[in-house]
């Protein structure tokens, strides 16, 4: 069952990416994963040219070093204060990536490492490269590379959960309490590098960013608890892997691209329909608030004209549209609301306050 193999591998990779990704998003350094995932290419290519084996564990070490070097150089450039932070991030990694691509095209294009592998990964072929031990088929090799990385990520986050939360939300307090944010920061960056290298073979250099950032960003739209955020991220990662592989088989397109597209679909859904952050909810909430405010203003207006000579003229629906410059539709929505709340009695066009409406108007004035 190669498809099952691919789904399992994709799930392991995406869950492995999501775990450090949650803290990248929380620490507002999401784009460091972009820088790292580009930079590891140079490490992989140089390592490959020396070792001549694309699946050697030594490659992971070399590539991870390239990732950390990028972080280090970028932060050095930021500290030199010659450039703003965003420009500094955007300057270093293109150099690493360009050198990597040039080396591939010059020296390695005839082997497994080519431009397509860099961008698309080889997850479709990964079931072909299997690990055999003691005469048994132990499944795709890539699973045995990514599984330890996943375990290291789980172990790291489990052991330093409190500390990671602390440096994410209050680095100042962390320093005051004697934790070093920068040590934990570099530990996290190392994990990101190692994970990116592990995922590189399967999904390519750039789509790693999508797996690291998109599920946690989606989860952040849905919850404010870190533990829930991790849980939702993992769920989205696995669902995207299953649906993405299915979609890729259905339309015969890039598997990694389809998985990423699915994470994008989940993000779009959360962006629109999240209960607290969602745009749709926000739109309706704002509309409701506008109508409620207008209703309160109407009550105040009516109470100030109550018992005066021009009451019959002022307190009418027609007056609302002309006097308050409301549109016909809006006045209808407002009058519907005030009648619904039993604040106002409506007799054809004429309006009169109920005792409850008078009370509400007074409390609005006093507020």
């Amino acid at each position, binding site marked *: 069952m190669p498809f099952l193999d691919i789904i399992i591998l994709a799930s392991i990779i995406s869950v492995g990416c999501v775990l450090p990704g949650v803290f990248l998003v929380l620490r*507002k350094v999401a784009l460091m994963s972009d820088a790292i995932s580009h930079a590891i290419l140079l490490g992989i290519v140089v390592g490959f040219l020396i070792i001549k084996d694309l699946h050697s564990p030594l490659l992971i070490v070399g590539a991870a070093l390239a990732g950390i070097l990028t972080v280090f150089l970028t932060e050095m450039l930021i500290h030199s204060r010659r450039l703003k932070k965003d*420009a500094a991030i955007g300057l270093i990694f293109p150099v690493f990536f*360009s050198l990597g691509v040039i080396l591939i095209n010059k020296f390695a294009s005839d082997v497994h490492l080519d431009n397509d592998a860099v961008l698309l990964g080889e997850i479709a072929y990964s079931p072909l490269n299997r690990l055999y031990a003691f005469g048994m088929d132990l499944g795709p090799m890539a699973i045995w590379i990514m599984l330890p990385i996943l375990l290291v990520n789980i172990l790291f986050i489990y052991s330093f959960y409190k500390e990671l939360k602390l440096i994410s939300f209050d680095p100042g307090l962390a320093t005051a309490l004697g934790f070093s944010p920068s040590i934990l920061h570099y530990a996290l960056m190392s994990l990101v590098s190692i994970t990116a290298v592990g995922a590189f073979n399967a999904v390519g250099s750039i789509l790693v960013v999508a797996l690291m950032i998109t599920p946690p960003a989606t989860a952040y739209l849905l919850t404010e608890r870190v533990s829930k955020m991790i849980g939702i991220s993992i769920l989205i990662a696995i669902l995207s892997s299953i649906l993405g592989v299915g979609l890729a088989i259905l339309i015969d397109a890039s598997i990694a691209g389809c998985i990423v597209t699915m994470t994008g679909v989940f*993000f779009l859904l959360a962006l629109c329909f999240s209960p607290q952050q969602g745009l749709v909810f926000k739109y309706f909430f704002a509309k409701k608030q506008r109508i409620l405010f207008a209703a309160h203003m109407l009550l105040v207006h009516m109470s100030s004209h109550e018992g005066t000579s021009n009451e019959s003229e002022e307190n009418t629906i027609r007056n609302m549209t002309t006097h308050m410059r409301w549109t016909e539709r809006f006045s209808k929505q407002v009058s519907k609301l005030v009648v619904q709340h039993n604040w106002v009695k409506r007799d054809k066009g004429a309006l009169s306050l109920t005792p409850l409406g008078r009370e509400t108007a007074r409390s609005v004035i006093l507020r």
Partner: protein
Amino acid sequence: MITLDYTLMVVGLGSTLLGLVSGVLGSFAVLRKQSLLGDAISHAALPGICLGFLVTMDKSPIFLVLGAIFTGWVGAFLVSLIVKNTVLKQDAALGVILSVFFGFGLVLLTLIQSIPAASQSGLESFLFGSAATLLKSDVIVMSVLGLIVLSLTSIFWKEFKLISFDTEFAATLGLPTSKLDLFLNTLIVISIVIGLQTVGVVLMSALIIAPAAAARQWTDKLAHMVLLSGFFGALSGCIGAMLSATIPNLPTGPTIVITISVFVFISLLFAPNRGLVWGYIRHLKDRNNIRAKTMLANLRLFSERDTDPFYPHELSALTAIGRGPAKKAMAELHEQGFVVNPEGNLWGLTESGLAASKLVEAEMFGGSDAIS
């Protein structure tokens, strides 16, 4: 002997132009701390290129460019929508948009590759860029768009300058800042799209950031920076594309990026005033100066205790009291005539040295009253 090959001329012209335009518009992106928006836009353009092809089944540059402008613009719009409306910050919004759009673009690209009639469409060259595929018709489209972008930038120069440095002030003057913001971003999108075929979606962002980052080191004036940035961009675009077109197996995008990065590196190190090398030399000079002054103050401490204020002391004693190597500082003071070196390792104050040490003491400790 220079032979002006026709293809090479087209390539050179196109890449010079794209460098110029991205250099000019990149200056605004970098100054407005929106460097990485270019990264998101260029990646977001990939699905647009593919859609442009899929809808028209035509590889004419105009359709691909229109598609790229559309999705690039949508990407930029979504980034600002996310940042304005949710807890997510700029970095996460950019990361999501650039990677998801790019992933979706790759899906479309693999779909196009599986269409038999389209397998030779050459859209893959948009990934890492290929100067060799530039045709005259491409350069014409690029020139027209570039000319529009550059002339609009010069027409709205004052407005763009204002919203780049002081948005609030611009708003109090009654300028429609959010509309100008959108307008400037649209121009940046177009300038990115101009370079996509030559530099590629993956690395185009570097051509927005790098020329401006290099130019920023040389000047504090916007007009100078924009011109210089355009110059750096044009030069490196031309050099990089020429190298790539003449040397086999040298991808264009990465070559241009390495070329412009050399400019950035030189500018960061050697630009007058802001150059890191000059900064380091200033730092060393300051340090030597402080060490020499400290040594002078130490010698004065000795001279106050001795009956002879000019009595020469062992270098090792001076090193011990100064908590550091004294030799360099003594050489410096000797050059200024503040100390004499009668023999071997013995050093003593001169008349002018004694006078200078009083000044140093006043400078360092606020006058001799402060320590007595």
